[in-house]
């Protein structure tokens, strides 16, 4: 069999490589996604103070540290059996909303998005943020940069730092939001909504309105039939901060729904020798 290695995989957070095996006819016989990485958070957290977990665990991923920071902070709420105050909860959700903007901007313009924006036939050397700026213009590039900068400012103002925030404590947050900052954040949020609309329009114009492209995206080769898992509120609407974990099957039918602390009843990790 012929083996094709894609090493490393690029434009996403984390390390990985893909081994693709081809049979004699040149068809894919099997493919393996290998993660050549282990830092051992599961072990080196042992002995560390519980309240340090939000700051230690977020080092799992510096692209989405806010998610890990808040997950650990909520675990501390559970551990200390305290409910955050209403204001603290809103402040945490506000930080997460700003993170949502930066993260989706990262995803759409820097990581996965260039494949869509530059198109399936574009050379590898152009499928990146610089290619995107080249195609859509420097003004768009500046808007992307500005949106990321403004929302990192929001994260820093609320969370202490722009990358790897520090504000999470059991039952609350370390710092209040001043009225002056609140007003500025409101302004930034409105601009972020405009930016989101503009981004959706780009996607619509470049992908959804391009029949050839759309046919390819919707073709069998690009359709992944799988289960999906996400956090939802009491009306099964997506919620990024709190709620229940809902799993749906490939047809969209609910398969399971559980409170995060019940995860051991629903999730199991297994070990493969090749990753």
């Amino acid at each position: 069999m012929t083996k094709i290695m894609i090493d490393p995989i690029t434009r996403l957070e984390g390390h990985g490589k893909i081994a693709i095996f081809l049979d004699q006819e040149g068809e894919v016989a099997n493919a393996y996604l290998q993660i050549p990485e282990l830092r051992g958070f599961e072990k080196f957290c042992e002995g560390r103070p519980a309240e340090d977990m939000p700051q230690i665990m977020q080092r799992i991923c510096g692209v989405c540290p806010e998610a890990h920071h808040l997950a650990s902070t909520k675990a501390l709420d559970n551990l200390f059996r305290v409910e955050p105050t209403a204001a603290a909860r809103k402040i945490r959700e506000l930080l997460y909303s700003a993170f949502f903007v930066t993260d989706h901007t990262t995803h759409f313009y820097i990581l996965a998005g260039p494949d869509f924006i530059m198109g399936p036939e574009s050379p590898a050397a152009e499928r990146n943020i610089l290619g995107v700026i080249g195609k859509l213009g420097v003004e768009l590039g500046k808007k992307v940069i500005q949106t990321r900068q403004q929302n990192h400012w929001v994260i820093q103002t609320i969370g202490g730092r722009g990358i790897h925030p520090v504000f999470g404590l059991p039952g609350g947050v370390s710092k209040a939001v001043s009225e002056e900052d609140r007003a500025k954040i409101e302004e930034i949020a409105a601009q972020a909504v405009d930016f989101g609309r503009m981004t959706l329009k780009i996607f619509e114009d470049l992908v959804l309105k391009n029949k050839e492209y759309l046919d390819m995206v919707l073709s069998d080769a690009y359709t992944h039939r799988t289960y999906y898992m996400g956090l939802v509120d009491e009306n099964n609407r997506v919620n990024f901060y709190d709620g229940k974990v809902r799993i749906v099957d490939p047809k969209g039918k609910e398969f399971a729904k559980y409170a995060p602390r019940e995860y051991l009843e629903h999730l199991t990790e297994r070990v493969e020798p090749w990753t």
Partner: protein
Amino acid sequence: MGKLKVALYWASSCGGCDIATLAIGDKILDLAAAAEIVFWPVAMDLKYKDVEQMAEQSIDACLFNGAIRHTEDEHVAKMLRAKSKTMIAYGSCAYEGCIPGLANLFSMESVLERVYIDTPSTDNQARGYPQAKVKVPEGDLELPRLHGTVRALHQIVDVDYFVPGCPPEPKTTWLALEALLTGTLPEKGSVISHSHKALCEECPLPKEGKKVKKFYRPHQIIPDAKKCLLDQGLLCYGIATRGGCGAMCPQAAMPCTGCYGPVGGVIDQGVHFLSALGSLIDSTDPEEIKRIADEIADPAGTFYRYSLPVSLLRRARTE
């Protein structure tokens, strides 16, 4: 003169340093105008084989983030060192081992056992671990071998400059990049930061230099956010940490945890903090001093949160 050729790489890291590079804002356009990025896994589709084909010394500068955890980290570090004129350890992992370096408090075997067998969510009754070489029905697969000890970049290859921070703040990143782009890099071996003095010097919270009778953990008190946290008994690491970040954590009423590394001229950040703490305790009674010092919940993980692999200890004895 053509554009500078720059490579960016992540070894055992979180990706925060890559995001920190993007966080320089508009200046990313200046960087793009002055430099050609020849390798950057988080942002560009270039592979190891592309780097292998580059000539020795053909890359002007490599910003290398991440600790050296396994044979692939080591291999890529050596390859990029050979291809690069200037090697920059960018961020705390490459500079001093950082959070991944906390694994040096344990044996590699116990890390593997915990991760792959013992966590409550793992079902691995066969007790097998990932292997460096595996035969699958279709052929052979390989993984890097883990080293027993996590190391910083300069413990593997020659490093020209160090940029501190977990991750470096945008102004620190730009200080390094601007020096690179304008050919004004300092003396080889320099740590690049706006300050080499203790963080306390730039922290705006007024410090009275109080002695303390009790150390508090961050969740145990609501500190006065306008006053020095250390004066209030919170273990703020600013007295033993290089400045240059802007002291944002103390200003968010959370203690500095030391991510900018030791102040200039200090070899072991933990020893420096420990000796500074000794003079803070408000007692001369050995029993009371012991009681107060015992309130520090996790001395190893607190004093060496970011710097264990480059400390005098380097790792715990685990035999």
